[in-house]
């Protein structure tokens, strides 16, 4: 039961790294022993996944990453290395995260995953989600984690990037994330499960809202770069630990918010502050949040 995160890190010309992700006591993150800089994005996601899997006593997540600052070079290098990584790691969950959204590469990557690890569960967020949706592959994914600025993109079959969404956008009249999630499912733009991150986190299964997480209310989390990524990391880790998808989504949303409260979040804080708060939050709450959590911890 291994999570493999496929993504990039913000270093010009940074090499391809494949290995277990580890979180040092001071919060620094390493992939295969090499340091990865802290920023919003994949470092935040991996940090949260490390914290969750360590708490559950599971294998640490693996990462396949390369340096990319938006030119797409690292993204291409990562996709080129994906077949070997899949054969070596044999992941049960593959999460596509910060990547240049290139539809052709994502089509090839999903086909490769389905060929080499056919039982793997697919997760997408960030550029991985943009590419999967734009390429018409969203229904083949188990989980996507759009925010309120992205769910309208999933619902609009005409657009290939959230920047082009002119309808269904947060801030426009009648904006309804639950309805947009339903539309996204109906139009083939959504994974089977969505966590729509917002003032209230909506967990949507096959187009129907199955849970809402509204507490605690920590508005500053939206301003902190990477707090959506930590939620994705938590949900991916819980999936890899064997949680049913909806339970993984609910526990991730609760843990993320609770960590935001524990750190007394302000807009000037960092995602690594949230990751640092996770061990205590998980220790105090995870067992009580769902039967699946308790069952998993009892194993």
């Amino acid at each position, binding site marked *: 039961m291994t999570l493999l995160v496929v993504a*990039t*890190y*913000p270093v010009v010309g940074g090499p391809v790294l494949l290995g277990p992700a580890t979180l040092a006591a001071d919060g620094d993150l390493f992939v295969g022993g090499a340091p990865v*800089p802290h*920023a*919003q*994005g*994949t*470092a935040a996601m991996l940090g949260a996944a490390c914290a969750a899997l360590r708490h559950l006593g599971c294998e640490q997540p693996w990462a396949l990453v390369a340096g*990319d*600052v*938006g*030119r*797409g070079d*690292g*993204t291409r290098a990562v996709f080129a290395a994906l077949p070997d990584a899949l054969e070596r790691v044999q992941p049960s969950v593959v999460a596509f995260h*910060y*990547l*240049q*959204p*290139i*539809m*052709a590469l994502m089509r090839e990557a999903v086909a490769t995953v389905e060929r080499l690890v056919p039982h793997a569960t697919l997760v997408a*967020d*960030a*550029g*991985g*989600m*943009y*590419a999967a949706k*734009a390429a018409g592959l969203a229904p083949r994914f188990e989980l996507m984690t759009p*925010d309120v*600025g*992205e769910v309208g*993109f999933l619902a609009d079959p*005409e*657009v*290939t*990037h*959230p*920047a*082009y*969404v*002119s309808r269904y*956008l*947060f*801030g*426009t009249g009648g904006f309804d994330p639950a309805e947009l999630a339903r539309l996204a499912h109906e139009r083939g733009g959504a994974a089977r499960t969505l966590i729509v991150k917002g003032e209230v986190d909506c967990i949507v299964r096959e187009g129907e809202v199955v849970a809402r997480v509204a507490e605690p209310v920590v*508005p*500053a989390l*939206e*301003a*902190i*770069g*990477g*707090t*959506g990524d930590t939620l994705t990391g938590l949900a991916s880790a819980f999936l890899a630990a064997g949680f049913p998808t909806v339970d993984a989504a609910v526990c991730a949303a609760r843990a993320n918010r609770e960590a935001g409260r524990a750190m007394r979040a*302000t*807009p*000037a804080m960092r995602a690594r502050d949230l990751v640092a708060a996770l061990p205590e939050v998980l220790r105090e709450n995870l067992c009580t949040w769902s039967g699946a959590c308790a069952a998993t911890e009892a194993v």
Partner: protein
Amino acid sequence: MIFRKKKREADPGAEEASGLFLFDQVPDALWAERVLKAAGYEHALVAPPHHLRAGCDLAVAVPRVEQVGAARALEEAGVPVRGWVDDPGSASRPTDLVTVVDFGEHLMVRAGNMKIAVDKVTRTIVNTSGGGCPDIPYLNVELVGKRLDEAPRPKALGYTLCGLMLDRAFEEACALLGVGER
């Protein structure tokens, strides 16, 4: 929360037929925009028609009647242009909706899926969030901790549409906090 739409520059598609310059990479489209702006051409950044997209592509629309001169300006500047489309059909523009949240000490400006948070007193960028392209974590590292008047423009460092949307949020934050045009 405040909602507003950014004022558009002249829209070349509004009154006369326009065509599109296509590019292999978003930075080339942004470069072309700078060249055409400096040369005084009406222009707009848009998404190419659906059948011509490879991912998060960006194209530049100009009035058809000005294609020859605009193409020459781009060639002289060395901008690599992939091609020209006479009839853009379903071309669309990045959203212009901007929303603002006041956190007391901090102001958060959201443009599409991108957000920037700024200390209202010091004008220091305390966070950027949202987005999913690889230049966004890079811009986060490069912008956070700098004042609006000293930070590089996101569109000067970024490469993708997420970077362009962050630039719109940056521009709006400058306007709201009285920082002159960058």
